[in-house]
């Protein structure tokens, strides 16, 4: 009787033929003992079949995965899957299933457009509360830019819905009129806000699918500049603008980014690719009013964007080739990468990134400053990587180095340390003394080669260090 009811539900939803339950076994890298393989954990998410016998899901469902299975509603037997493409900056991934015939009785879902505000959508997935397919229903509440918490740094167009989205919904399709209008991916827990769930809308999904057409995923491109609204009448007059509520003022242009050297702070951006920019930093695209950044969001590496600007009162047109600004990645969560480190004389050296900061939560002010203002203060110019003495495997050789935890390495034997490979290089050079100078005031750490060599085996075995470096 129960079986019949369940089968009946499954038949009632045409989406059931397209939906898969994804079980992922992943391994989280250990940034405190970076030579360790890390903790193994499991998770459940949803996915759906798209054209080309592929399965779409969220990047965070399959990040750091060591083993993946998918199971269909109609056939609960798990089949092994593998990641074809993964885009951590927009939290999307495409999976393949190698077992022949897996896709035979499935139906690929088509992508729709941006659903209207207040229109009804259904969310499919495998959220907590049971193990089988769950459907929740709600309306489109808001269309706006939101930070994608998977990377923690990237913001893209996002649609907020009031249907319940819970752990396990991730990667599941949000449907309207038989078409996918989004991929459920994040939400607030009930103690912060009620009925606030987010889905990745189809412009972001379509961009991802187009990006991977050439067999490779490039990251999102960005102008790498900041701008401010231009409401103030005095500011408008001073900049030589009409009282037409158009234009935004450029605050910073970040070094190494697409606009570096082309746009200048103080420029007024009037239009982008011919689309007038409102003074509240929005433009009108086919889908309505969207943030100005959306004009760039839909483009790809190497594409161009045309800006009409006002510089010192004179109109100009600028053409900018788009690229992805690398210094920004420092503030992004990183996945599918082993932590990088060098161990020498029991001292652990690591490059600072978001993963490092999350794992260590250092209080050191200088370290926090360099991390927080890496882009704004152009610290990357002097230090493409911030190398920090992240830990000390206590041993007689480093008995007096304890005060230097989380200090930033400035020089080793007189050579400026710009990246982790510089550290390895300096320690590989024969020298009687290794003199490590830290940023800011402090004495150098001095290690005698003899002492380091003597301590090496002892430290490795005592602390079960399986690897002395990963560059």
């Amino acid at each position, binding site marked *: 009787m129960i079986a019949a009811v369940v089968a009946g539900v499954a038949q009632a939803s045409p989406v059931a033929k397209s939906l898969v339950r994804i079980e992922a076994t992943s391994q989280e890298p250990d940034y405190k003992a970076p030579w360790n393989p890390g903790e193994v954990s499991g998770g459940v*998410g949803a996915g759906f079949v798209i054209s080309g016998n592929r399965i779409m899901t969220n990047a965070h469902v399959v990040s750091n995965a060591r083993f993946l299975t998918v199971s269909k509603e109609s056939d609960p037997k798990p089949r092994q899957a593998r990641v074809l493409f993964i885009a951590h900056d927009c939290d999307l991934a495409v999976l393949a299933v190698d077992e022949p015939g897996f896709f035979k009785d499935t139906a690929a879902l088509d992508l729709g457009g941006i659903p209207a505000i207040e229109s009804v959508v259904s969310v499919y997935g495998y959220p907590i509360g049971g193990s089988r397919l769950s459907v929740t229903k709600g309306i489109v509440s808001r269309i706006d830019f939101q*930070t994608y*918490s*998977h990377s923690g740094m990237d913001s893209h167009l996002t649609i907020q819905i009031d249907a319940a989205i819970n752990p*396990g919904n*991730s990667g599941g399709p949000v449907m309207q009129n038989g078409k996918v209008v989004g991929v459920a991916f994040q939400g607030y827990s009930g103690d912060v806000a009620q009925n606030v769930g987010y889905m990745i809308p189809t412009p972001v999904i379509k961009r991802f699918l187009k990006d991977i057409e050439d067999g490779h995923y490039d990251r999102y491109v960005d102008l790498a500049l900041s701008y401010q609204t231009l409401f103030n009448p005095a500011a408008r007059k001073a900049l030589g603008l009409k009282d037409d509520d158009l234009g935004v003022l450029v605050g910073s242009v970040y070094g190494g980014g697409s606009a570096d050297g082309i746009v200048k702070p103080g420029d007024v951006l009037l239009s982008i690719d011919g689309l007038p920019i409102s003074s509240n930093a929005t433009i009108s695209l086919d889908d309505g009013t969207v943030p100005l950044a959306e004009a760039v969001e839909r483009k790809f590496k190497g594409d161009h964007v045309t800006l009409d600007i006002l510089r010192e009162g004179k109109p100009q047109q600028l053409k900018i080739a788009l690229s992805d600004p690398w210094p920004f990645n420092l503030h992004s969560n990183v996945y599918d990468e082993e932590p990088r480190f060098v161990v020498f004389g029991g001292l652990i050296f690591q490059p600072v990134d978001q993963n490092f900061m999350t794992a260590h939560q250092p209080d050191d002010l200088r370290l926090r400053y360099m991390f927080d*203002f890496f882009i704004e203060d152009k610290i990357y110019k002097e230090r493409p990587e911030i190398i920090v003495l992240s830990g000390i495997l206590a041993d007689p050789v480093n008995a*007096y180095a304890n005060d230097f935890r989380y200090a930033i390495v400035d020089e080793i034997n007189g050579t400026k340390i710009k990246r982790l490979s510089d550290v390895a290089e300096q320690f590989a050079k024969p020298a009687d003394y290794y003199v490590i100078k830290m940023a800011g*005031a402090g004495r150098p750490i001095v290690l*005698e080669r003899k002492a380091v060599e003597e301590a090496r085996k002892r430290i490795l075995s005592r602390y079960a260090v399986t690897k002395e470096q990963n560059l």
Partner: protein
Amino acid sequence: MIAPCPAETTVPKNSRRPVLAACPNPCNNTTPGSVAQAFQPVLEAVHRLESLCHFPAIAGAIFMALCLPAMAGVTPQPAIAPDKTVETSNASILRVNSTDQAYDFLRPWTKKAPFSRRGLGTLIEGGRILVTAELVANNTFIELEKAGTAEKSSATVERVDYECNLAVLRPADPAFIAGMKPMALDRGVRVGDRATVLQLEPNGEIAQTLGIVTSIAVGAYPLDNMGLLLFRLSAPMQQRDGSFTLPAVRDGKLLGLLMRYDARSQTADLISSPVIEHFLGEAAKGNYGGFARAGIAFSATRDPQLRRFIGLKEPGGVYVTDVLTGGAADKAGLRKGDVILAVGGKAIDQDGNYEDPAFGRIAFSHLTNTVSHPGDTLAFRVFREGKTLEIPVKMEPRDHSKILSESYVVDRAPRYIVLGGVVFMELSRPYLQEWGGDWVKEAPQRLVFYDAFQNELPQDRDKIVFISQILPSQDTIGYEGLDNLVVSKVNGREIRNLNDLAEAAKHPVNGFQKIELEADPGVLFLDAAAIEANREKLIKKYALPALQRL
């Protein structure tokens, strides 16, 4: 919380960031909170430069009142006989009631609510009364009250030094202290000596708590992370009215003033008699010089690998890690990397201590800041690149006018300028401390970093001028919510302090006040004529007593 669905949960950035400008609960200095926090890692202080580091926890404890456990039914008393000599000490002590009112650094045109502190003052020679500086910080009214008779008289601060936390008061009416007996300083204190902390019973009788001097060391004083000599006393104190400042005596002589008390470990930190003596000696001069600083940071040389590397054969010495630009050591020619072997003829050990004939091994900063006076010359024996040099250093106090972000602003109003609703201030630590005890993490980080690393910044300005907030008005439409932005130029002129800004504002360009900022949004414009026309409206709307205070 944002919940990416499989098991993990992360919070999106900005999700619940509190609105800082409207900090609802700025540090309430009057709260007698956990006194235990008031204790600082004393040894650490010695190894850092007096001026280059900061003690975040001290900040919160600056004006922490002495909080003692309430009197219990059973009174534990140490098994030591009471000191008979103190029974007449009430002839030397007075109650001091100080009404204090600090400025509100978030609204620099206003003062916070007044509150009062009650402590004990000790009569010293010259008809003056010695108290801690904390007791009378930001005072608006000081009242002396005789023990027993409750006879009252007002008093004024004759000399105060917040670095050593001492003040001398003078009664408005000299006759008020007639018949009282000044107390002399005890100069012979040693570890292991017994001392008595005095309190007053409501009836004016002396309450004594006997204690033992357990250690004598250089430690952190509340303000300006100055390291000065402390006596640590083990004594089981009890709560009594007016215990903010208490004298500790031995054989009828004053050995120190109680500055901190930790109820859990029953230990008290005393401002020591050598520090009091130095303060009084300076106060007696026409030109008060205070406490000198060498202006160096150093670290220990215990690591044999370091010693071998620098070729240091002497048994002691400390490694100079930083020299404050323009400080005494800098002027004398000390450099980073020098190893200080001796100061004033006293050998310095690997940790920076010397053997004091009276107090044993204590930090050599006692020699530089307390034993010697500003203007004295101390010989530094220095090991540099294999050679030993003798460098005379003329000791001098810190020049407060040259401090970029001051660590304390007491008895002084914060400076500000309001230009068309945009509020400009000069960065100081009290501003950041308005974010409460955890200000290092909670206060605007850009400004925290400016304060912390001020000695590393290019020396091209006197102060960090910043926009602390916007008072929204017709003239600031679109700028609402901007705060804590460092100003670089106004109307094309470099801004090194608020006076520069006041001058620059007199020269609008093309009718606009152009304010250039170090961070986004980069530039703000105000209509010079409009803000002038709206002056009175702004003053009235926000009840500002004045649009600037310089």
